[in-house]
C-alpha cells in the first residue's frame, strides 16, 4: 500500500507528460515524449555507455567520501577532546561553511587541471562539513549525567571516551556520514558539468551541446535514482549498527 502511495505522483506526472506529448501541447524539441526517452535509456544501457558514466561518477564519490572521512573524523575527535582548539577552528569553519563547493571549482581546475584531482577536491570540500560538524556535535553533546555514571564506576578518561562518549555520538556521526554522502554526490555532478571528460554530469553537458534533451532527461533521472539508492543502502547498512534508535516498542508491564 505504501509503495502504491509513493508511486502516485510520479505516475501522474508521467501520464500528463505522455498525454501532453501525444496531443501535441508539448514541443517535442524541448521535452521529448516518454517513449523516446525510454528508447534512449535502453540504447544507452545496452551500449554500456550509461553504466560506464555511472561507474566513473560512483567511483569518484566513494573515493572522495572515504578520503574526507579519513581526515574529517579524526579532526572532529581531536577538537572534541581538546576543547581549546574550538576557539581557533570555529570562526574559520563558519566562514568556509558559507562557500558552496561549486564556487571553488574554477580554482581547483587552475590548481589540479580537469583530471580526477579537481573532482576529488570538490567532493572533499562538500563532504567535510556535514561529517566534521555532526561528529563534533555528537561528541560535545554527550549527556553529562551518563558521564557521571562513568565517574561513579571509577572510569578513566580513556574509558569514558570509548565507552560513553563515542557510542552516544554514534547516531549523530552516522547522520553526518549520510548527509556527507548525499552532498558529495550532488557536488560531484556539479563538478562534472563544469569540467570533465566522463561521468554522469559530463554526459548531460555533452547532450546539451548535441541538442539531445532525451539524454539530458535520462541523465537527470539517473542522478536522482543513484542518489536515492546510495542513501537507501547506506541507511540500511547503518541502522544495523545503531539498533537502539529503531522505533520503540514497549515490553509489557514492570
Amino acid at each position, binding site marked *: 500500500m505504501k509503495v502504491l502511495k509513493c508511486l502516485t505522483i510520479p505516475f501522474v506526472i508521467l501520464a500528463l507528460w505522455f498525454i501532453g506529448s501525444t496531443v501535441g501541447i508539448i514541443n517535442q524539441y524541448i521535452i521529448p515524449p516518454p517513449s523516446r526517452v525510454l528508447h534512449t535509456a535502453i540504447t544507452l544501457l545496452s551500449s554500456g555507455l550509461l553504466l560506464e558514466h555511472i561507474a566513473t561518477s560512483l567511483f569518484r564519490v566513494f573515493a572522495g567520501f572515504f578520503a574526507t572521512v579519513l581526515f574529517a573524523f579524526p579532526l572532529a575527535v581531536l577538537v572534541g577532546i581538546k576543547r581549546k582548539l574550538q576557539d581557533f577552528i570555529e570562526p574559520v569553519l563558519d566562514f568556509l561553511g558559507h562557500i558552496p563547493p561549486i564556487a571553488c571549482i574554477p580554482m581547483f581546475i587552475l590548481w589540479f587541471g580537469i583530471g580526477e584531482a579537481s573532482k576529488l577536491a570538490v567532493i572533499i570540500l562538500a563532504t567535510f562539513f556535514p561529517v566534521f560538524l555532526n561528529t563534533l556535535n555528537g561528541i560535545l553533546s554527550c549527556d553529562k549525567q551518563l558521564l557521571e555514571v562513568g565517574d561513579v564506576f571509577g572510569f578513566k578518561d580513556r*574509558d569514558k571516551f570509548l565507552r560513553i562518549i563515542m557510542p552516544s555520538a554514534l547516531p549523530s556521526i552516522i547522520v553526518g556520514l549520510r548527509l556527507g554522502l548525499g552532498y558529495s554526490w550532488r557536488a560531484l555532478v556539479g563538478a562534472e558539468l563544469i569540467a570533465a571528460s566522463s561521468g554522469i554530469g559530463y554526459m548531460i553537458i555533452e547532450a546539451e551541446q548535441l541538442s539531445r534533451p532525451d539524454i539530458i532527461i535520462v541523465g537527470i533521472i539517473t542522478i536522482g535514482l543513484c542518489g536515492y539508492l546510495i542513501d537507501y543502502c547506506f541507511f540500511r547498512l547503518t541502522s544495523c549498527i545503531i539498533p*537502539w534508535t529503531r522505533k520503540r516498542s514497549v515490553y509489557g508491564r*514492570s
Partner: protein
Amino acid sequence: MAGVKIQKVDKNFYINGQGINALSDINITIEDRSFVALVGKSGSGKTTLLKLICGLEKSTRGEISFFQPPEKSMNCQSNKVSIVFQEPRLMPWLTVEQNMAFPLIKEKNRDLVSQTVNHYLDLLVLKEFKNAYPSQISGGMAQRTALGRTLCYDPDVILMDEPLGALDAFTRKKLQVDLINIFQLKKKTIVFVTHDVDEAVFLGQKVVIFEAGKIIEHVPVNIDYPRDPLSRDFLQVKKKILSLIEAENFH
C-alpha cells in the same frame, strides 16, 4: 565492607557570585552494613551530601572518611562507593544485560561477569527483558536495571538518591521490599535519600532528618524487617519524625 564517617562537613555553592550554604556542620556516622535513610524537603542538601560521599563533588570544609569493621583484617580493606541516581541513567545503546555488566568492563574473567549479571537478573526479575534496550522497558524495570548495575559493581557502600521517586505507588512498594531483601542478603552499607517519611521509616535502621542544609535529628528505628506500615511501632516513629519536621518549620 565499610562504614562512613562524616565530620563537620560544610558545602558552599557559588551561583552568580552569590554564596549559598548547601550543607553546614554535618556529622553522621554510618555504621558498616547499616541502612540509613536521609529524609527532608527538596533543596535540604540530601543529594549534595551523597555527591560528596561518592566524590562527584568536594566538600568546602570537614572530612568524609571510610572505616572498616574491627573484625576485618587490615590487608583486604576496600571502600568502593557507588550511587544509584534519581534517574536510571542507563546507556541507551546497551541492552539491560549489557547495562548491568557496564561497570565490569575491565574485568578479564568474562565468565565471572556473566555469572554475576545473571545472578542479579534473576534477583531483580529482569531475565525476560535482558535483551531489551532501555527505550523499550518501563520506568520500574529501568530503575531495577540501574540498581542491578550498581550491585554488579559490588560496592561496599551504596548511595541511593530517591531511586524510587519517579515510580508509581505499586512498583515503588515492591521495590522497597526488594531493597530490604537485597540489603539483608548482600550485607551492604546503604544510604538512602528520600522525601517520603513513610519510605524512610519502612527502610532505614536510622532516619536522619535534614532541614535547610542542617541535620535536625537522628531517629533510630528499632523495628524488625519486614515492617508493617500500619503497626503501632511504625506509626509512632513516623509521628515522631513528622512532628520534628513540623516543629522545625514553625520556628
